[in-house]
């Protein structure tokens, strides 16, 4: 018997595969976000591709620069719309509909046991429902759009065993950061992660998405949570390269700067200027609720701005219905359209020289959100909200214990 990755990739290749094998696979889906659509069209045109054999397997998401903030990006959107129409690709998710990975899971575009590619590294998120999702570059995406196939190496798997239960105020994001500290930014390169153990059953889809999303920050090719009631299934005699056991009850809220991941207390409460709640890592309704629970009846600290970017229109609607948005806005937050928002520094919410942002996203390279002379601290939604209230990086448990 085999790992979840071996089971899924064997189906996609039409023959039994084991870790280390190189194979041509036929994916069930191949998506592309708007930041790569111009390059994809350019490649297809240059390669003389006039017909896409499987338009029903393709899909496009206008999420990174939506609404467009430059003429160049607006033109890429416009040319993309015409191109997709010409080629009969009907799955176009427009400006304001949300981030690709969120939409894929939320709208059931992908299913357990499927193989999905997307020209975006956080495609590992799809493993939350047992779909093997992984990123591709624009050239290989063009190749898949033109042929329906691509070469792939079957990864070895690291089994991550989660035990115990998270304490109040500790989130899935803190599990990710604890793993990042343990494994390092390249510790899972070329590997798949499989999340197992007694704690997994209690994790929501939202929490599973956060876990699988950040697997790529350890270098992973894919991350899979075994689906609750569907194929593929965990096999007792699958061969794993390595096992990591994590006791969730021992975790505490964490934060990360480039090259430094630690419990919040270790950072010495640095002042913050911007708080950002959103992204494919932590922009779901569950995340907005956690932030709202802390912000209810409170105000942002003077001099702090907090941006809230729902991961999708459905998240935004739920937040509106439940009164979560009202709580966030009354506390002083700025609501932006669903999508990637400030995450990749493409539009809205850039950081200036010397500023510090606490973000619920997954990446903090210098310059990612604007100035190279700004710091991005990664943390959970509750930590983002607590820090926005205090004006400094703050353990959310401090604000949970004392009622507003």
């Amino acid at each position, binding site marked *: 018997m085999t790992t979840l990755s071996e089971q899924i990739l064997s189906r996609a290749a039409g023959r039994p595969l084991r870790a280390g094998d190189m194979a041509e696979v036929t994916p069930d889906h191949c998506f592309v976000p708007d930041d790569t659509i111009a390059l994809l069209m350019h490649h297809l045109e240059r390669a003389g591709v006039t017909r896409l054999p499987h338009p029903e397997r393709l899909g496009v998401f206008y999420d990174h620069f939506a609404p467009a903030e430059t003429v160049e990006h607006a033109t890429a959107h416009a040319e993309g719309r015409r191109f997709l129409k010409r080629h009969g690709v009907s799955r176009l998710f427009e400006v304001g509909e949300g981030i690709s990975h969120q939409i894929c899971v939320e709208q059931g575009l992908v299913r357990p046991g499927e193989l999905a590619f997307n020209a975006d590294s956080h495609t590992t998120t799809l493993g939350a429902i047992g779909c093997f999702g992984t990123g591709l570059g624009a*050239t290989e995406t063009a190749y898949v759009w033109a042929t329906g196939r691509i070469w792939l190496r079957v990864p070895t798997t690291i089994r991550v065993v989660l035990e115990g239960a998270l304490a109040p105020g500790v989130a899935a994001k803190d599990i990710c950061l604890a793993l990042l500290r343990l494994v390092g930014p390249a510790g899972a*390169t070329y590997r798949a992660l499989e999340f197992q153990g007694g704690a997994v059953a209690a994790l929501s889809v939202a929490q599973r998405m956060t876990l699988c999303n950040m697997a790529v920050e350890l*270098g992973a090719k894919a991350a899979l949570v075994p689906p609750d009631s569907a194929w593929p299934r965990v096999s007792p005699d699958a061969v794993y390269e390595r096992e990591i056991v994590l006791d969730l009850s021992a975790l505490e809220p964490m934060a990360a700067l480039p090259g430094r991941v630690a419990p919040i207390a270790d950072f010495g409460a640095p002042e913050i200027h911007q708080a950002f709640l959103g992204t494919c890592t932590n922009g779901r309704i569950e995340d907005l609720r956690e932030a709202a629970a802390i912000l209810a009846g409170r105000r942002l600290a003077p001099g702090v701005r907090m941006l809230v970017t729902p991961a999708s229109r459905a998240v935004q609607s739920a937040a509106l219905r439940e009164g979560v948005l009202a709580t966030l806005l009354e506390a002083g937050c700025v609501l932006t359209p669903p999508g990637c928002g400030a995450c990749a520094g493409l539009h809205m919410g850039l950081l200036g020289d010397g500023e510090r942002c606490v973000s619920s996203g997954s990446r903090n390279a210098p310059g990612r959100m604007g100035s190279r002379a700004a710091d991005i601290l990664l943390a959970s939604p509750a930590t983002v909200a607590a820090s926005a209230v205090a004006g400094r990086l703050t353990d959310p448990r401090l604000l949970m214990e004392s009622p507003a």
Partner: protein
Amino acid sequence: MRVSGSALVLGDDINADLLYPARYMGITQPERQAAHALSGLGPEWPARLAGHAVLVAGENLGGGSAREEAVTALLGAGVRLVVARGFSRLFFRNCINNGLPALACAGLPALDSGTPVTADLAEGWIEAGGARLAVPALPPELLGIIQGGGLLARLRA
């Protein structure tokens, strides 16, 4: 297949955001992308890259984003070989599929920028700083993609 040139040396964990910031995505010509190659490290880096046909890096080169401009901007700037102690999966795939030879060399010694580097992809060695190091040769499938000029060349064939 043998490649050589003067090396520009980078450190560990140089990720895609540093190699090619997202705000320059959407430029399709590698020659134009080259103006922004390595610019995430600072505005002086695109000029520093000029004249170096070999990029040398430490662990985990190219982590993070799937953006292939991190690779094609290097090609546009004249880079013909990338050697690193380790590569992120997406950066490595983007190198191969765009026809840029990429060799992993776990025991790569510390080198100074400007050192001449030669590598043979099929035989599996790198020569730098007076020493010859054995490295895993590229599998024939991947060498075939590079020699053919990248993955998309197959569609034109």
